[in-house]
């Protein structure tokens, strides 16, 4: 069943080159490997320690997410989107319901926009902490990883107070959210915002000017601006190569148009600049969360009963006729909300890049086609290009800096 390495080479192999390639050594990297990037496999052709070619082999976590999307309705599918980029599940929830609400053409309430911004940015901090932690761990720095993990536990505490689950929250619903943000959650977030910058400074002192870290990541895995655009890279990887694009600024969604923040970019495009871009993005996210908490509007979190998509609260259900009708329509089987017979694509700036959903609605409450455009998939396709010519020990550094999440890669 598993593939032999020779089956993975592309079919056109020149005969003259084969004789030279006799001394090349084939190494199978994965799918079970010590680097903290779950199930992916790379078949490497090595000349001593230098990588001549790398053929990725993926699909070891392909679970049929897109097929499930045709059988679960829009509110049930958000639980499945959690399991895509499982390092920052809130961002996936926000992306999915952003797409669903765009398809339905409804506008969410201001409070909901601000809360979704806050949780998306907390998810971004969580993702970047783990990504940089994994880069550190794979090149040998364990302490940075543990610091990052502890701070992620604090973020998990915030999410747990918010909706009950540490991660894989499934917090958003069509037209609103599962629960509103209580004062306890706001207090916890403020405490986190007060305490975190000092820890972030400590963490940066651990790795940022560490001679070994810089030697292992500077100049490694360079992606030029032209290559980044041609290969469809988005997010911190593209920004570290000089592509100055960020969906939060270019086509603002949620509350980003009202908030002030910068978008860090770099020009070298190597692993070190991706690390720096991510650390700078963490600081910008802290600014965004602080501003959003200051200006959090009051009001309802779910859209009103006229839209007929969100469950109304119980007072409305028992006291108004529209509330009763909406509750009935949403809860009874074979009813639900109607979706236009059309297709569209909507994307947000997830921590990994542009996470978009192409949705085709067919009138019923299940999507006809729920396609996820996964940033990890597109970025892993650049891996052979980045690693050619580098040594075996650079593989983990490059793989870590690309932030490949296998569940998003394979869906």
């Amino acid at each position: 069943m598993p593939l032999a390495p020779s089956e993975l080479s592309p079919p056109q192999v020149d005969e003259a080159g084969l004789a030279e390639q006799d001394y090349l050594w084939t190494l199978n990297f994965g799918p079970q490997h010590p680097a903290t990037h779950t199930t992916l496999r790379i078949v490497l052709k090595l000349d001593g320690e230098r990588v001549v070619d790398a053929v990725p082999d993926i699909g070891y976590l392909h679970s049929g997410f897109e097929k499930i999307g045709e059988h679960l309705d829009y509110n049930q599918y958000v639980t499945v989107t959690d399991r895509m980029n499982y390092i920052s599940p809130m961002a996936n929830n926000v992306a999915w319901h952003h797409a669903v609400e765009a398809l339905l053409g409804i506008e969410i309430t201001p409070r909901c926009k601000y809360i979704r911004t806050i949780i998306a940015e907390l998810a971004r901090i969580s993702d970047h902490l783990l990504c940089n932690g994994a880069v550190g761990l794979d090149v040998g720095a364990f302490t940075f990883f543990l610091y990052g993990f502890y701070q992620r536990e604090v973020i998990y505490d915030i999410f747990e107070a918010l909706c009950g689950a540490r991660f894989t929250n499934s917090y958003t619903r069509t037209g609103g959210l599962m629960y509103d943000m209580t004062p306890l959650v706001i207090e916890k977030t403020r405490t986190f915002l007060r305490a975190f910058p000092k820890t972030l400074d400590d963490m940066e002192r651990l790795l940022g000017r560490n001679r070994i870290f810089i030697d292992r990541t500077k100049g490694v895995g360079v992606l030029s601006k032209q290559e980044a655009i041609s290969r469809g890279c988005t997010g911190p990887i593209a920004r570290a190569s000089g592509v100055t694009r960020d969906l939060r600024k270019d086509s603002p969604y949620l509350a980003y148009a009202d908030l002030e923040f910068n978008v860090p970019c770099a020009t070298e495009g190597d692993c070190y600049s991706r690390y720096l871009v991510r650390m700078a993005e963490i600081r910008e996210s802290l600014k965004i969360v602080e501003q959003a908490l200051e200006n959090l509007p009051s009001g309802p979190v779910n859209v009103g009963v006229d839209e007929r998509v969100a469950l109304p609260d119980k007072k409305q259900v028992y006291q108004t006729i529209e509330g009763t009708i909406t509750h009935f329509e949403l809860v009874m089987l074979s009813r639900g909300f109607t979706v236009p017979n059309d297709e569209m694509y909507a994307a947000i700036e997830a921590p990994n890049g542009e996470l978009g959903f192409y949705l085709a609605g067919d009138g019923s409450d299940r999507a006809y086609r729920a396609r996820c455009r996964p940033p990890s998939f597109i970025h892993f396709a650049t891996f052979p290009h980045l690693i050619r010519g580098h040594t075996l020990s650079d593989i983990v550094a490059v793989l870590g800096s690309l932030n490949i999440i296998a569940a998003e890669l394979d869906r």
Partner: protein
Amino acid sequence: MAIEVPENVLVSRLDQLANWCRKNSLWPMPFATACCGIELMATGASRHDLARFGAEVMRFSPRQCDLMIVAGRVVMKMLPVLQRIWEQMHEPKWCISMGACASTGGVFDTYCVVQGIDRFIPVDMYVPGCPPRPEQLIQAIIDLQDVIQRGGTIRGAEFETRQRQQPKRALVELPVLNQPLHRLTTGGGQRI
């Protein structure tokens, strides 16, 4: 005539000693595929520290481990890899199936996800949850330590007689009403 045993001598069976050694130094082989893998890493990280229970290092080489924790969904492309790693581990070895996806397929009843690794691998402990909290995984490891202490032998004789896990047992209806209430709400590993 009773034999006088001085106070600083402990008499026990060799089996118990072997069990005590084995259960307190279970080195896990983290077969982390998906989201449960992150909770596995969180269990090994500083807040819920798995090293307190003897799992000092998470070795990635199957030759050096005795406990395989399958965390996350296993798809049909990955299953031969899982089987090969299980075969490479030396006895005595145990397997914990962490999470709903490894135990029964979880949310993913699709064409590519194996509906429970116990169809193809002998499993000793199941940890429910999606993902299970780190405390649940620690409880499962403690329960597994109890199992090892109670039933282990130094020669590994318990592995020769254990039957294959019946795959359909999870579908058998258990008499829910006759069980005492505290057994229904146990959150740790359940041995079926």
